[in-house]
């Protein structure tokens, strides 16, 4: 088991070597879209097509005008894409770097941060779709938009502890990656992304109130749509962050030096 000082040192090393993971995540994206004409904007274009398609279907199912529904659905899908990609990639965050882990000693946080920063870059490309949708649909933007930032910070920080936990345990238990990827697909449908929480009736409302992803999405979606998220959502996500961070640091301290033997 590592001492807690070593965990802190690993975090410090990760901060000190920030140039390395920013470079690595940049190269991940750059090489992925090399030789394509529009490069990483394929991300934007692909997301635009998804949003438009799902927006058309959902708005006709729920009989809401597309102009009203598209801004809602675009934010939801863009944010959900970030969340689900991080969760799925977290399961291979260490195994995919096995060749490096077996050759040089680096803080394990570095691999997590590389993966998350890569997905943040992708998220920024995808957020262009939100901007375009808002302009096309003439969605008004009000000062409530500043509530987006605390929500966004909670989103990023919550992805850290989730990635550490999934990264460690999915390396040890190889079935976890498959379980997680199937559950993630299911979660998208029980989270208010393509539908609104107020469409649920009676006791079914708990699908949205008990679902932490619903609260997470609402923290970054509501401000863009001119609403202040509920205090309850903030408290739940702050609570998850505190408990999750503590748990993940404890797991890191206890198990991280065994990860190399599990690969």
């Amino acid at each position, binding site marked *: 088991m*590592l001492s807690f000082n070593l965990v802190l040192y690993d975090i410090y090393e990760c901060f000190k070597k920030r*140039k*390395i993971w920013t*470079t*690595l995540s940049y*190269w991940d994206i750059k*090489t*992925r879209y*090399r030789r394509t004409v529009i490069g990483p904007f394929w991300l934007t274009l692909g997301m635009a097509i998804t949003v438009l398609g799902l927006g058309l279907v959902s708005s006709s199912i729920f009989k809401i005008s597309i102009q009203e529904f598209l801004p809602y659905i675009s934010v939801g899908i863009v944010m959900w894409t970030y969340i689900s990609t991080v969760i799925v990639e977290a399961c291979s965050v260490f195994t995919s770097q096995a*060749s*490096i*882990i*077996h*050759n*040089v*000693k*680096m803080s394990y946080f570095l691999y997590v941060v590389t993966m998350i920063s890569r997905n943040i870059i992708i998220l920024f490309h995808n957020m262009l779709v939100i901007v375009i949708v808002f302009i096309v649909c003439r969605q008004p933007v009000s000062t409530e938009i500043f509530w987006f930032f605390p929500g966004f910070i909670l989103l990023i920080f919550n992805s850290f502890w989730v990635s550490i936990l999934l990264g460690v345990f999915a390396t040890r238990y*190889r079935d976890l990656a498959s379980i997680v990827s199937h559950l993630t697909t299911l979660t998208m449908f029980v989270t208010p992304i393509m539908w609104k929480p107020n469409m649920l009736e009676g006791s079914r409302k708990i699908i949205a109130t008990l679902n932490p992803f619903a609260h997470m999405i609402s923290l970054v979606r509501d401000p863009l749509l001119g609403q202040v998220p509920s205090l309850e959502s903030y408290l739940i996500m702050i609570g998850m962050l505190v408990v999750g961070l503590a748990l993940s640091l404890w797991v890191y301290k206890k198990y991280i*030096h*065994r990860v*190399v*033997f*599990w690969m």
Partner: protein
Amino acid sequence: MTFINLNNVNLEFPIYNTQAFSLKNSILNATTGGMLRKREKNTYIVSALKNISFSLQEGDRLGLIGHNGAGKTTLLKLLAGIYSPSSGNVETKGKIATLFDILLGARDDMTGYEGLYVSSLVRGKSVAESKHALSKMAEFTELGDFLNVPMRTYSSGMKLRIGFAVATEGTPDILLIDEVFGAGDQNFVNKSRERLMSLIERSGILVFSSHSEALLKKLCNKIMVLEHGEIKAIGETEEVLSFYKNSIG
């Protein structure tokens, strides 16, 4: 002050019998390797290193010898900080460089230049150091205009040049080498040997595993014989090598 200090180090690790791991390999190794014992259903414990104690100071060149699976690579990975001991203390001071796998961090869709740069970062150099060393490394590879071409078009020898150029750049305090590699055409082999020798000269401490007695004699002032994860002998090169020759008959 550069040093390596190992005190009563033991290293055990589990091998899980799932499809993800090739158990066949570890059983095959068992005949020549460390101790393997069954813990519970589907789990094996390998005692890879047992009661290892030694220390090295600046200027020491230690050669590791022993048959396959005796623990040479495991010991090198332990010194590199990649493995942590199950018990005992490992203390090292100084900047560590490893030569285990030669090509590291570079990917096929990068050009040669990009491969050099990213690989250098992965090997722990700063951005400034990597940029600074880039032209020197590029020159060493002798790949010329090919450095602007994606590495997927490279032959394995060309890729090795990229990896080797990065791996042998800089001045480490502690240099850990697992076996010696010789690939590429004859001209490059000579050139890379020269570069490797100068890297070894610059390094503070060398720990080097090899099966070649000639190389060990040439490079090392100390030899350690490993067998089943234990130190069988450690001491002056000539003395230990003759002991080793006698012991394997």
